[in-house]
Every structure is written in structure tokens, then in C-alpha cells.
């Protein structure tokens, strides 16, 4: 069932703002906690809890950062939100600022979206003219402004601590945690980093209430979710659906036929084969990263694997051993496979052991998930190799 909570057109800044400012910051945090909203970037951390940590953290300044660095292969939902639903994002950021006590917002935009920069700046100016941003927003005594910072071509900067490093003008190398950004983030100040889609949910929840929001989705995966659907289907695009939808339902909706496999959650996500198609996409099922790539039966999964592994090898930041060296070795292995070499059982076991080591010992999510497609695709589509 397609929904239109997030993708509804038109600017209705007034209503959500009016409602938001009638609450205290604590009340807003409680509402978001009650809503069960979980981060839409992939990891699914409870948003209300993140805000609460930041609200309680001591800091003379605080920041709200919108992570618009969607770089996961197959993801483009944020592009649609940024172009069509910017009003929701602006409200979401400002309300987050109000809730945690931050007067500064930063939109961290991937460099591949630089083409929308002028438009975004123009719209932000408009919001400012309408007093939805700037000093004393709508006369409510709260100041909030947003500036845009651009990535410059580094997927790893979607990782929140790498993103902070990048915003500080450094190499986008993930930091050690703790401290977490909510304690010490941008320039050492408490910082909430939320995905574009997460923030766009905020005005909806405040406007329509927790109960209405919870009508969609499952018990542990509340609300609707945007899916970026591409690959072998008749109607690729961004779809808003309930969390908990089955893969088969989704494939029908987008006009996919003769489907062999579905990649859910991007290169670092997981691969569903035909026997998985009745499973659901939600935090308790196939993790809903937002990227859905469909492969029909004419596709060779070895090529898909090679594409993903090359991607990680190019995008590893190079800081920690397992990821830097591990992605290099995985690439070597898939290239050997492509050349028609057959990996010996011994080699295969070494690579699987390597995959386990990367998952267990890499510093950040990139390295921890980079070997997923190797294990998953090789496991499920052995006949393609």
C-alpha cells in the first residue's frame, strides 16, 4: 500500500511549527520517543533517544546536522525529499533544534547533488524571509538557521563521525566511539545527526499525532518508509510504503517480473533470493536501508558482486587494517573469479574467514559490512560463479 505522509506536496510549515512551539522541548522529545520513530539512514537508532542524549549533554552550543550524504548504491530517496519536500526537512531540523537546544543546523550534502545547491540556497532564503528560519522563528523566541556543507566525493562520510570530521575540514575518517556525537560532535559540541527522511517524519508526527503515525508499519518498525527502487522493473522510483511490506508485494507494485534477486539496503545490505520474497522489510525483518535493487533472471550475480566489492575497495577510508586490506583482498578474489579462475576451497575459506574478521574488527560500519555481499551473494547464488 503506497502512502503519502512524507511525499505529500505543498508547504505547510505553519501547522507543525505552531504545534511544536506549543510544547516544551522535553514534551517534544517524549512525543518522538513515543512515536517509536527509528533512524531512516539504515542503523535504525531510536530518534527520540538520540535527541534526549543531546538535550541532556552539556555544551554552550549544540548542532543539528542533517545527513544528506546518501551514497549507498541504489539510494535516491533523499534526492526526492530535498527537491520536493524541503519544507518538511526544514521543520524537522528546526524542531530538533528546539528540542535539544540547538540554534545551528547544518545540511551535509553529497557532492553528487551539487546541482541542487542553488535551488536549496534560494529556498532557504525564502524560508528565512517567511521567518520559518532565522531569528525569533514565527515570533516564538527561538533562533534557528541552517547552512549547507558539501561533501567532496567520499562515501564513508555518510558515517556520522566521518561526516563530522569532513564538516570540520578534515579527512573523512571515522572517529573512535565513545564519545558519541551527541556528547561531543561537530567542533566538540553535542550534535544530533539525523537522516533526511528521519527529519522529514518529524512534522508529520507532530501535526497528526503519535497514534496516526503508528497506524503505519509494525510494532517495532513504526511509520512509513521511503524506498528507492531501481534495477529490473517497469516503474523505478521512490515509493512510500508501510514498514513491514513483503518483498513480493513490493515487486508487484513496481512491475518487476522474472525476478532473480533483490538487494535490500544497498551494497552493504543483504541479498534476497526467490525463497526470501515472502519475508518482510522492517527492522525485525530485512533491514530497511531504503535501497532496493532488482535483478532479473538474465543477470549474473557474479557481476553484481564484483560491482559491490569494487565499490567498497574504492570507498574504504584506509584508516583501519581490516577494511583497507580486507577490501583489497576481496577485490582480488572477485577479480580472479571474473577472469574465470575457480577459487579453491582453501582460498574460499580464507576469504570467508576474512569476511568475518572485517565484520568483527573494522572501526566503522563501512568495513563491518563491506564483506556482506561477498558472503551473501556467494552463499545464495553459487551457480553464478
Amino acid at each position, binding site marked *: 500500500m503506497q502512502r503519502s505522509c512524507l511525499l505529500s506536496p505543498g508547504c505547510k510549515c505553519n501547522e507543525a511549527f505552531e504545534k511544536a512551539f506549543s510544547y516544551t522541548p522535553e514534551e517534544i522529545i517524549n512525543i518522538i520517543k513515543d512515536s517509536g520513530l527509528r533512524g531512516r539512514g539504515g542503523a535504525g537508532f531510536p530518534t527520540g533517544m538520540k535527541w534526549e542524549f543531546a538535550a541532556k549533554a552539556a555544551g554552550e552550543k549544540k548542532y543539528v546536522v542533517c545527513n544528506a550524504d546518501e551514497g549507498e548504491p541504489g539510494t535516491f530517496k533523499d534526492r526526492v525529499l530535498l527537491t520536493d519536500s524541503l519544507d518538511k526537512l526544514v521543520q524537522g531540523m528546526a524542531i530538533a533544534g528546539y528540542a535539544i537546544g540547538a540554534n545551528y543546523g547544518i545540511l551535509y550534502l553529497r557532492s553528487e547533488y551539487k546541482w541542487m545547491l542553488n535551488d536549496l540556497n534560494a529556498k532557504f532564503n525564502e524560508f528565512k524571509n517567511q521567518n520559518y528560519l532565522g531569528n525569533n522563528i514565527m515570533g516564538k523566541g527561538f533562533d534557528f538557521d541552517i547552512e549547507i556543507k558539501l561533501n567532496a566525493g567520499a562515501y564513508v562520510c555518510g558515517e556520522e563521525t566521518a561526516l563530522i570530521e569532513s564538516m570540520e575540514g578534515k579527512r573523512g575518517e571515522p572517529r573512535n566511539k565513545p564519545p558519541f556525537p551527541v556528547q561531543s560532535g561537530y567542533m566538540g559540541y553535542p550534535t544530533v545527526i539525523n537522516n533526511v527522511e528521519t527529519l522529514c517524519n518529524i512534522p508529520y508526527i507532530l501535526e497528526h499525532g503519535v497514534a496516526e503515525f503508528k497506524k503505519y508499519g509494525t510494532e517495532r518498525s513504526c511509520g512509513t518508509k521511503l524506498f528507492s527502487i531501481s534495477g529490473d522493473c517497469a516503474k523505478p522510483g521512490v515509493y512510500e510504503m508501510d514498514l513491514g511490506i513483503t518483498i513480493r508485494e513490493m515487486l508487484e507494485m513496481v512491475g518487476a517480473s522474472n525476478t532473480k534477486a533483490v538487494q535490500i539496503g544497498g551494497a552493504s545490505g543483504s541479498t534476497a533470493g526467490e525463497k526470501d520474497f515472502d519475508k518482510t522489510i522492517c527492522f525485525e525483518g530485512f533491514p530497511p536501508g531504503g535501497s532496493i535493487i532488482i535483478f532479473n533472471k538474465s543477470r549474473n550475480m557474479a557481476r553484481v558482486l564484483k560491482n559491490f566489492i569494487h565499490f567498497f575497495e574504492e570507498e*574504504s*577510508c584506509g584508516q*583501519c587494517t581490516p577494511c583497507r586490506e580486507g*577490501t583489497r583482498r576481496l577485490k582480488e578474489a572477485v577479480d580472479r573469479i571474473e577472469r574465470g579462475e575457480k577459487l579453491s576451497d582453501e582460498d574460499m575459506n580464507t576469504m570467508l574467514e576474512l569476511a568475518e*574478521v572485517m565484520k568483527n574488527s573494522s572501526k566503522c560500519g563501512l568495513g563491518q559490512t563491506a564483506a556482506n555481499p561477498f558472503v551473501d551473494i556467494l552463499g545464495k547464488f553459487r551457480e553464478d560463479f
Partner: protein
Amino acid sequence: MQTAVESKLTVSINGKEFDARKGETILQLAKRNDINIPTLCNHADLCESGNCRMCVVEVEGQRVLQASCTTPVAERMVIRTNTRKVRKTRQMIIELLLAEHVGDCQTCKRNTNCELQDLAAEYGIEEVRFGKSQEKRYEVDTRTPIVRDNDKCILCRRCTQVCEEIQGVEAIKPMGRGKDTDIGCLFGLPLDETTCVFCGQCINRCPTGALTERDATKEVWKAIDDPTKHVVVQTAPAIRAALAEEFDIPPGERVTGKMASALKMIGFDTVFDTDFTADLTIIEEGTELLTRLKKALVEKSQVALPMFTSCSPGWINYIEHYYPDLLPNLSTCKSPQQMFGALIKTYYAQKKGVDPKNIVSVSVMPCTAKKFEADRPEMYDSGYKDVDHVLTTRELARMIKQAGIDLMDLQDSEFDDPMGISTGAAVIFGATGGVMEAAIRTAYELVTGREVPFANLDIRPVRGMEGIREASLTITDPLPEWSFLNGAEVKVAIAHSLTKARMLMDKVRAGEATYHFIEVMACPGGCLGGGGQPIPTSPEIREKRAQAIYTEDGAMKLRKSHENPAVKVLYEEFLKEPNGHKSHELLHTKYTPKDTW
């Protein structure tokens, strides 16, 4: 009391409970309790980077392994350091590093003293399942005293950290991304096109042979083996306090006499001691300071104060690059190494009746910047290259081993006369604060006619390992010629490591410093922590070396530079007077401003 109780945590490691301190990491707790966790990127002098992932451990309740160097302990944390998963992970990490580590152990300077080699042995790595790359991708950069071989680099980044965190220079950085990351300079330039000061601290932190000193042993052997050459060697004060470490002796053992014996057995024609010119430096530099003070206080003329010491060549390089406007404050004295070099090919040559062109002057220094210093165009005042070759402590140890000498079995012998005679004041040049202490011992006595008012001549306020130390001494009842100093409070400061020097220099530049004299040593701990010293280094090791140096001073008959009889003779026979014409010709110099970035 409440907080004291709260800050103590109970943590379990491998099934045994330990008292942990709030805020400490798993690694720190384990180390304190003698539980060995292997590390590569971790170093006692540096911030935790968590890059190598060797130190991962299992923590109950965590999805993945945790890097023990960056994970703080928590109440009731349950940690396992020796599970199958942990061992397998560490083995794999070593294999991954070895696969990209190109170079033969047998021809590596760090053979038998390499952390990667040790770990590979410890974890029983018998093969590298990914294959071992044999193809060299990088040219070994031997253009400067710091030799870089990136094929051996494992990207732990300790070198870039020490350069930034301790020295504030940032001469090398990680460049590129991912598998293309390497450590280097902008656009692949050599170090001498950056602000590198050649302190060599990166070498001392490198776990492998990726960073080493430019070797001079071949040239020195060649000179020794050449019967037409008269080879003279001088050894810096910090060598004797650390050389034994190269022979597997724990830090803190003094081997002054054994070293002198070894040098003679190696075949040096004359074995001198840089301590001699350390004493000479005190006379020259002390005179210079008093002259500046007199100019400022009596003649009220414009004179650059505070005066800075000029013994540390890393510091000289640093001030030239970063504080060129403060160069007038720098003492014009050459370093003891260079004073020595200039005297060997003049005073000594005359005295000995040797043609200076046949003299090869070798120094043994705890320092890589000394190699750079000896090559400076300013250092030819004898009419020849004053110091021909500079060996580090490590290179000397290699020569001793190559000569088949068992250092620790040797009988003590004395340095040769006359430039082997020295005082305790010279020995302490090897430790941070030592030049200052030596200067005060002499200057105070010169001015007042009395010994410094400190028990046993130990000027404790200027000693220690605090990064910046300050002290003051009020002059009372001076001799008539120094009456202008009566009641003056002489203020001094000491800094070691260049980030600390920077803090002092910023104060001086801003006009906020009221000091008269500042001692700066580029390396942490002073020369005893120099970039040419035995590897590894750590605060504890440097502390031990410092103790050795102060013990040596305490055991000396002469403790004050101006009491050095050979220096007195040098003035009588050759130099005539401190800061005189001859001194200026041979022992003083001037440095040049350089570009900061």
C-alpha cells in the same frame, strides 16, 4: 569520599575480576595487571588512534570485537582477551599487513627489533594466505637524514601522530584514501621541501623499518680502514646513558667507560668526548648571556632577550622555519658537536701536528638532525667540513657489533686528552634542563663568587619531565663588576618537544614572557630522547636514561664547566678569551630565516 567510591569499577578480564579506574581503557587496565594485549598503532607517547585493530577483545554484550585501546571500561564489563575469535582475528590482521609489507627482514635495519616481526612470530604466522607482494612500489627516499621506505609502512600512523602531536610540524601526513593511502609529503616531495626539522622522532615511533636514519657506518668504516686518515670521534652525553639498550640491557645503565673502550677497539685514532665542548658552550653561552644582560640593564641598549639556547639542531631548524623573527634571540653559539668539529681541524690538528685535510671527524649523536646540521653550509669554519660524519647511537651499536665486540664485557677506559676531559655539568646536557642547570652553576658563581645555593649543586627546579618548566633565582651580593645584577631576579624557562617550544615562543613573540634565558630541546626528554637513540622510547625509558645521566653527573669530580682544566688550557693556548675574536670565528654562527610553510 563518595566520588572515590564511584570512580572505582569492577571489571572482569578472562574470568578474573579487577579494580578498574573510571575513564581508563581496557588496554590500560590490562597492562596494569600484566595481561598482554598486542598493539601496533598504540604508543605510550601518543593519543589512541585505534587504527591497527590488533588489540581487539571480546566484550560481552557487544555485537563485534572492541579495540581495547579506545574502549573505556565500564562497571561489570566482561572482557575476554584470549578467545579463538580474538586470536583468529589478530592472526588475520597480521597476515593482511604482511601481505602488503614489502622487503626482506634480513636486509632491514629493524631486523630483530621490529614490532611486526615480533607479532608475526608470536602469533605463529607460517604463511600469508593472500600471497606476499614482492614488487617494490616505492622508491626508498634517502635524500635526507630520515630515510623513508613506504613499502615497509603498515600505516599505523604513529609517525604522523608524533610529528603533529608532539612536534607540531606535520612534515608527513597520510595522503590519498583507502588502499592508495600512504604517508608522505605534498605532491610526493622529499622531506627537505617541507618544514621537517629532522628530529627523527618518527623513526623512534615506527614499528617497522619504514623510517630509519641515513646510515653513515660505511663511510666511517672506510675512513677507519684508510691508513692515511686520522679518524677522530666525539660522543655526545646522551649516548652513554642509552647505548646499552642496544645490547639488550634494560634502560638506565651507564656505559661511558665501556663505550670509550669500544670506540678504541673499533679503530678510531682518537676518542674524544663532546662533553668537552659542552663545557666550552657554557663558557661561551654564559658569557653571551651576561653580556646581553649587561647591555640591557646597564647600557639600556636594544638587545634581544630572552636568549635561547642553540644546542639542539632540530630546534634550530624549527626556529628558522617557524619563528624566524626571533632568530636574534638565539644564542650565536654553535652546538657542542659543531664547536668540536671546528676545534678538531684547527686547535687539535695544530697541537697534534696533523694536516687537517687528513683528519676525518666523526661524531656519535643521539640525533638525526645532527646529520643535517653537520651538512649545513655554515659549518665549514675550520676551512674544511667541521664534522665529516655523524653516527647515531643505533649506528654506533651496529659498528660495535660488526667489530665483534661484546660491549658489556669490556673494561672501562678513559677518553683521550685533552678534549676528553669534562665535568658533570656537561653530562647533563643530555637531559632536558641540563644546559640550563649547567649554565646556572657557572653563571651564578661567576657573578657572585659563590656556588649556587642548591644542595650538592643539584638545581632541582629545572629538572624533570614537565613539558615547560620555569624557575627564577635572585642574585644577591654579586662581585663588584656585576653589581648591576644586585637584587635582580633572573628568570628562566625550559621546554622540550616542539609543541612545548611553540607555546613559549608564542609568549615571547607576544611580549608576554619575562624570562631572561630559555632552554629548548627539540625532542621529548632532551637529547636522551633524541631521534637517533635506541628504539623503543617511552616516558619511562626516558626517565631511566635521565636518572643515569644525573647519576653520572653526581659521580663526577668536577661538576662545573668553568672548572674544566682542559677548557682553561684551550683558552690560554688558543681562544684567548670567551666570546673573543677566535671564538667568533670558530664557535659562533648565524642562522637564516626560512619559509614557514
